[in-house]
């Protein structure tokens, strides 16, 4: 046979396309043409393939080789086409007598020695393959653990091209040992490490209960980062579906190995404040890669020194904050990634960082102080429900041997409160307090009569905007859920109002 046909998958965002790899060997001068809009990594495949074949002792065709990746209109990127092309070449040359079945998808990059190398995006690729009625897959050994996470798939992993030849000629399957993943565990983080900070702790807890976005303000070294890093430890563990989504996104980004497949801990992503808009929301010219907002899906996006961010970067968060997903359009294609995260911003109170309301060591002018937090745009701040001031612990707190509550203890309350909310919102489109639509807040989900009266008075005195009115109510519901009240009381509304306003800023 001089024409071979095998199948693989092209990923556009998290959406898969079934790709037919056709390999034709015809008479003519030795040559290799690859059709179907390959990118640079893919065009380099010839050199990898040729060396891999020769170093494995497999015959390289000294004829005219034409490879077509169809559908031809879809731009192809990445290196996972190496192995399907190699198998196509082996079938076309008759080295492999029986071609792979139609329902088998093949992925993998080739090393020059003929070894199969790790590729990105195997998890979403195989999930997509399910919808094309594929039933088995050939993957590199390094991707075995990730591939096994997809249910209902027969996975065969290989270390080298020669093992694949053995399999197709003699049915010999290599030892499916997989490769040890080195996962950086963040299990050692615990709220118990934080000294004092009672108001900030409470803000964290309420934020976790209702999914309220949070702004932490405080002088340097008081523990803003320390607190934020520990939010994933008090959030409920991810559901199976969420965990699959998160793993799929991290697989595309190539960061799954650090995180571990199907890890149930919510992700914590902390981009530096010099990050670009592209890195924040996702992008790239060939393949549109997920940005920080998508990597933080179902978890926490923490931006330290938020006022130092380029203003466009912070404002690019507005669309994902609103819709829970992000749509990126590039010349090659349009991609949507999920981006439903808890936003935590941290800021110094002023440029010098030492303004704490008592006017001690601070060297900034009142104008500077006023302008500093203004760098966070109004529309963005409107989406922040809770502002908490993080103060330096006092000497009494530092000397105290009494430890604060542990993460496990707080997490228990968070899960209980979320359970109460989920019960209340049964049959609705939302399940957490921060997502209650504003019309419902004025209808079915009002606070107690005296609480509403307080809010109306604040509205009258123009201390509260309409949006702020709804935000306060949402936080009040989370406060009520925490204490087990069935409806937010006047105290809850007052507390929520204080949390929204922050202390003095």
């Amino acid at each position, binding site marked *: 046979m001089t024409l071979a046909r095998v199948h693989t998958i092209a990923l556009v965002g998290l959406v898969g396309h079934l790709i037919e790899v056709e390999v034709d060997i015809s*008479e*003519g*001068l*030795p040559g290799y043409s690859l059709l179907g809009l390959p990118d640079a990594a893919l065009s380099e495949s010839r050199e990898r393939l040729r060396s891999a074949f020769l170093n494995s002792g497999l015959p390289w065709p*000294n004829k005219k080789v034409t490879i077509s990746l169809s559908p031809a209109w879809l731009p192809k990127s990445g290196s996972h086409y190496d192995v399907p092309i190699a198998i196509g070449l082996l079938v076309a040359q008759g080295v492999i007598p029986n071609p792979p079945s139609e329902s088998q998808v093949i992925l993998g990059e080739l090393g020059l020695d003929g070894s199969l190398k790790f590729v990105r995006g195997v998890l979403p690729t195989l999930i997509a393959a399910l919808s094309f009625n594929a039933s088995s897959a050939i993957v590199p050994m390094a991707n075995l653990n990730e591939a096994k996470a997809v249910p209902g798939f027969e996975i065969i992993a290989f270390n080298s091209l020669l093992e694949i030849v053995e399999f197709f000629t003699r049915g010999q399957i290599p030892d499916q040992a997989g490769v040890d993943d080195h996962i950086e565990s963040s299990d050692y983080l615990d709220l118990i490490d934080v000294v004092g900070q009672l108001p900030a702790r409470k803000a964290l807890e309420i934020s976790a209960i209702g999914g309220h976005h949070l702004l932490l303000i405080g002088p340097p070294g008081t523990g803003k980062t320390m607190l934020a890093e520990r939010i994933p430890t008090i959030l409920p563990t991810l559901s199976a579906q969420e965990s699959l989504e998160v793993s799929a996104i991290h697989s595309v980004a190539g960061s799954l190995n650090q995180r571990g497949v199907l890890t149930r801990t919510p992700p914590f992503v902390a981009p530096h404040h010099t990050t670009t808009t592209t890195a924040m929301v996702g992008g790239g010219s060939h393949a549109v890669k997920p940005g920080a907002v998508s990597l933080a899906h179902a978890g926490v996006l923490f931006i330290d020194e938020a006022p130092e961010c380029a203003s466009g970067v912070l404002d690019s968060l507005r669309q994902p904050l609103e819709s829970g997903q992000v749509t990126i359009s590039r010349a090659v294609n349009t991609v949507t990634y999920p981006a439903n995260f808890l936003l935590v911003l941290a800021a110094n109170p002023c440029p010098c960082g030492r303004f704490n309301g008592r006017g001690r060591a601070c060297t900034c002018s009142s104008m500077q102080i006023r302008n500093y937090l203004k760098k966070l745009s109004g529309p963005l701040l409107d989406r922040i429900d809770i502002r908490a001031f993080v103060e330096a612990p006092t000497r009494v707190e530092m000397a105290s041997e009494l430890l604060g509550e542990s993460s496990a203890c707080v997490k228990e309350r968070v899960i209980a409160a979320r359970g109460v909310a989920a019960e209340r919102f049964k049959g609705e489109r939302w399940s957490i307090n921060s997502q209650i639509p504003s019309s419902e807040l004025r209808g079915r989900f009002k606070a107690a009569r005296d609480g509403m009266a307080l809010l109306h008075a604040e509205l009258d005195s123009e201390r509260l905007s309409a949006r702020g009115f709804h935000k306060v109510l949402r936080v009040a519901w989370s406060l009520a859920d925490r204490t087990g009240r069935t409806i937010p009381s006047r105290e809850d509304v007052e507390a929520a109002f204080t949390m929204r306003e922050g202390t003095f800023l």
Partner: protein
Amino acid sequence: MKNQALGARGEDDVMKYLQQRGCTILDRNWRIKEGEIDLVAQSPNGEIIFVEVKSRSSRKFGDPLEAVNAVKAQRLQRLALAWLVTHSAFGKPFRIDCAGVLYSLDGRNEIDYREGVL
């Protein structure tokens, strides 16, 4: 020197190969400023054949024919047209072939002859 001798020997062998198949040799190492055509022959049915011969003593640097890249292929086409014009044969049917000759240590040769590849 050794490579030149190898090239000449390859051309000899391909010439024999063509003669065995009833072709008449019209020209050998036809050279103009732009380059050289190794062999020009005429097939029994009158077709003019231009042959590029590549000789190698091992496959260490790849198959002999892999050395014919796009630039060389284009040059061969230009040379073929030039030969036809200078020999008042322009308009006659012609084709360009490539022959890869591989010599093993014991002196045997292996001719990989590809017809009409360019």
